[in-house]
């Protein structure tokens, strides 16, 4: 039998002026289950709380109802009071008779009656309350970073710096990501490699960081603090532990037709290669599509030349299984495909290039060794036209509806660099709007115009066509209200960026959500921008939304601090108001699994006794209380009512409804 105490607060005159607290006390004392009812000036005060504690002891109360202000205000206070008096913290219910009663009603009669109903409702609920204990789980003190671009590198370095182990999983043969492909970075024009490669080296040298290059996440199980991840190490046909990165194999390889992905396919590389000079790990890899040995069992030159015997043609994919406490997703981006934009002639003209291709064309380690030569004939372009917003801000279905954010700045950078290096070059930029918020960003763009004489034209290009070897760029000059044609030697498209397509698969494996543009959704757009809705999974870089290098680094460091905060805990205390399943009623239909936003529900085959000494194996739902956040979506989805929520059980809510409706 429950023994309930009811404590009615005057809140000075806040409640007592409109609610006849004496009448409420009298009425509640008569409620079934209530053994004690009292009113007091300020229940939340030291004396008030002592009054509650004494009453709990004296009347052997099993639960307390406090009629006071909103539970959002003092529920936590009274839970602590109850706990201090030896009650379970969850044997406390609050009747909100201030915000939702005394403050909004003027008539004493009306307010008093309502206060009695609200108090009765709370009593009805508490009679079905059960003591709850928040579950505790341990934390694996290791983090996983998915993606080895600047976001992943920064997050890993920061986490390692705090003393925790970090694994980076990178699907390409080297870490470095998109930033490694850039020539210079705005707004300071630092050489990208000069600032990135030291960080890459730091990763390689840190005894806390472990890099799984050319690897992918195969499977993720578990939950915050306790993720079980299976990593697929793809066969690179080179033993990572033996290869010294000397490059002899590359020189000896007779197959040289592979497209150099690092240089945006602008030149070729051998079938065995190291992506670029500063690659981490500095280990060769064999492209099975190009390797003569792997394709037709002929050749085998590299194996013979390799001094350390690192080449292994028979190598197969292998798997590593590790435990992690937290996961950072930093899968990055790629430029969109331009198939829907025939008007810019990208497919038909070699001299129409994307901005990322231009980065390689201008880079000293690129296909032209840093001299700006156009791809078609290797000549210096004299007139270069940039087109901005190619595929960005496009709601027609051809491109992306969002602004890619980085294009205005990198186009200004490209224009500036070209004018500086080749002052005889004419540079035009077609723009719709110039968007340069950020420290020193607008100044940077203005420098391109004022100091370097870049010709910015307000308007969009309608088409690019080839006429006698010249690329004719036809577009609007809206300020002049003219249609103009600029005969150009090179056309650069500021191509929209999109999340790397691998993000879809990762999102599914981690049960985190993606928006209509495939960007990962943060837990709260304003207040939890680096957390995913799934506890223990964090987001860094462009996988969450378009951003430039400094922003990416900030977000990565923010992620790292969140991860460190999590890994620093020995135990994670959960919210005890979570879902639970009555296995006898569960039919295993999977509907609850489909509505759960956290992936907290899984299915297990379990044996049940069915009488007569027999058993049967049934598929039943199983809730992970460490992952469940207690929204209750599953409870309504479940047709048999097998799912219920602690603290807000169906029976309790039905009792509340009955109490409210009792006339």
């Amino acid at each position, binding site marked *: 039998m429950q023994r309930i105490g009811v404590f009615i607060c005057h809140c000075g005159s806040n409640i007592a002026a409109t609610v006849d607290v004496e009448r409420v006390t009298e009425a509640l004392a008569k409620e079934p289950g209530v053994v004690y009812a009292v009113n007091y000036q300020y229940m939340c005060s030291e004396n008030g709380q002592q009054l509650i504690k004494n009453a709990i002891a004296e009347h052997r109360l099993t639960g307390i109802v406090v009629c006071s202000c*909103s*539970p*959002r*205000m003092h529920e936590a206070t009274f839970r602590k009071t109850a706990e201090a008096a030896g009650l379970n913290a969850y044997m406390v219910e609050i009747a*909100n008779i*201030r*915000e*939702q*009663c005394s*403050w*909004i*009603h*003027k*008539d004493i009669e*009306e*307010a008093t*009656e*309502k206060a009695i*109903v*609200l108090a009765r*409702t709370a009593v009805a609920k508490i009679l079905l309350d059960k003591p709850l204990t928040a579950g505790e789980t341990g934390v694996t003190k290791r983090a996983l970073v998915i993606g080895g671009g600047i976001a992943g590198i920064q997050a890993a370095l920061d986490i390692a710096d705090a003393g925790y182990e970090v694994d980076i999983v990178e699907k390409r043969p080297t870490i470095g990501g998109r930033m490694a492909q850039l020539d210079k970075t705005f707004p300071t024009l630092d050489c990208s490699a000069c600032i990135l490669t030291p960080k890459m080296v730091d990763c390689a040298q840190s005894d806390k960081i472990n890099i799984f290059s050319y690897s992918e996440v195969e499977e993720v199980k578990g939950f915050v603090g306790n993720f079980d991840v299976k990593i697929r190490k793809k066969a690179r046909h080179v033993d990572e532990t033996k290869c010294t990165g000397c490059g002899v194999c590359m020189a000896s390889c007779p197959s040289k037709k592979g497209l150099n992905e690092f240089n945006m396919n602008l030149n070729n590389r051998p079938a065995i290669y190291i992506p670029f000079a500063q690659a981490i790990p500095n280990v060769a890899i064999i492209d099975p599509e190009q390797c003569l040995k792997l394709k037709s069992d002929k050749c085998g030159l590299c194996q013979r030349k390799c001094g350390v015997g690192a080449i292994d043609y028979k190598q197969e994919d292998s798997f590593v299984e590790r435990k992690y406490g937290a996961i950072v997703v930093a899968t990055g981006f790629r430029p969109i495909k331009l198939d829907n934009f025939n008007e810019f002639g990208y497919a038909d003209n070699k001299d129409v290039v994307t901005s990322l291709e231009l980065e390689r064309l201008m880079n000293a380690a690129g296909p032209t060794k840093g001299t700006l030569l156009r791809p078609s004939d290797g000549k210096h372009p004299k007139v270069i036209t940039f087109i901005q917003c190619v595929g960005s801000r496009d709601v027609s279905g051809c491109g992306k509806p969002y602004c890619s954010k980085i294009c205005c700045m990198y186009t200004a950078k490209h224009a500036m660099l070209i004018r500086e290096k080749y002052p005889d070059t004419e540079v035009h930029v077609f723009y719709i709007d110039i968007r340069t918020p950020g420290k020193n960003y607008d100044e940077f763009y203005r420098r391109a115009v004022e100091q370097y004489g870049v010709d910015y034209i307000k308007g969009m290009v309608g088409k690019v066509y080839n006429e006698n070897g010249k690329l004719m760029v036809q577009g609007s000059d809206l300020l002049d209200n003219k249609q103009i044609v600029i005969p150009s030697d090179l056309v650069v498209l500021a191509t929209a960026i999109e999340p790397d397509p691998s993000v879809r698969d990762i999102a599914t494996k981690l049960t985190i*959500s993606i928006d209509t543009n495939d960007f990962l*959704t943060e*837990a709260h757009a304003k207040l939890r921008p680096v957390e995913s*809705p799934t506890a223990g999974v964090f987001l860094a870089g462009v996988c969450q939304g378009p951003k430039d290098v400094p922003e990416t680094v900030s977000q990565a460091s923010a992620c790292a601090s969140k991860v460190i905060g999590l890994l620093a805990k020995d135990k994670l205390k959960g919210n005890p*108001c979570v879902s639970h399943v009555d296995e006898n009623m569960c039919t295993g239909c999977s509907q609850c699994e489909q*509505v759960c*936003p956290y992936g907290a529900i899984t299915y297990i085959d379990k044996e049940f006794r069915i009488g007569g000494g027999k058993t049967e194996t049934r598929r039943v739902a199983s809730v992970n209380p460490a992952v469940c*956040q*207690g*929204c*209750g*979506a599953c*409870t*309504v*989805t479940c047709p048999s009512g097998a799912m219920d*929520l602690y603290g*807000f059980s*169906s029976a309790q*809510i*039905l009792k*509340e*409804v*009955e109490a*409210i*409706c*009792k*006339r």
Partner: protein
Amino acid sequence: MQEITTTHKPLIVAFCCNWCSYAGADLAGSSRLSYPAEVKIIRVPCSCRVNPIFVLKAFQRGADGVILCGCHPGDCHYSTGNYHTRRRMALMFSMLNYFGIEKERTRIEWVSAAEGAKFSQVMNDFAKTINELGENRRLEDLRCKK
């Protein structure tokens, strides 16, 4: 049967999600924005915790109107809860109306924690509507009206 006279006092059950609408109701209170006392609030963690059974139960026990309040779509504390609510209740309310239950007796409103004024206005408006409709006779359980 004895005709129930005009002394009938209407009753409205409001299910409010803890994170937005319940906080909105608190704000209405601290801003002293009144609404009729016949509105009684039940706190639920999320609007998606509200089972259609609860709605029917309220009517059975004598409620004259039931209103669900949740975070605005897109703002759900649990990210997707209110999207489920929106579907479930659109179908449920449509079904109740198909059974001939007055469509004005059920309502969903999205009220944020900052919209105290909206909360009060919604409740005033809903209470007015229910008052005009009068007693719920189509989903009543006479045993509960003794």
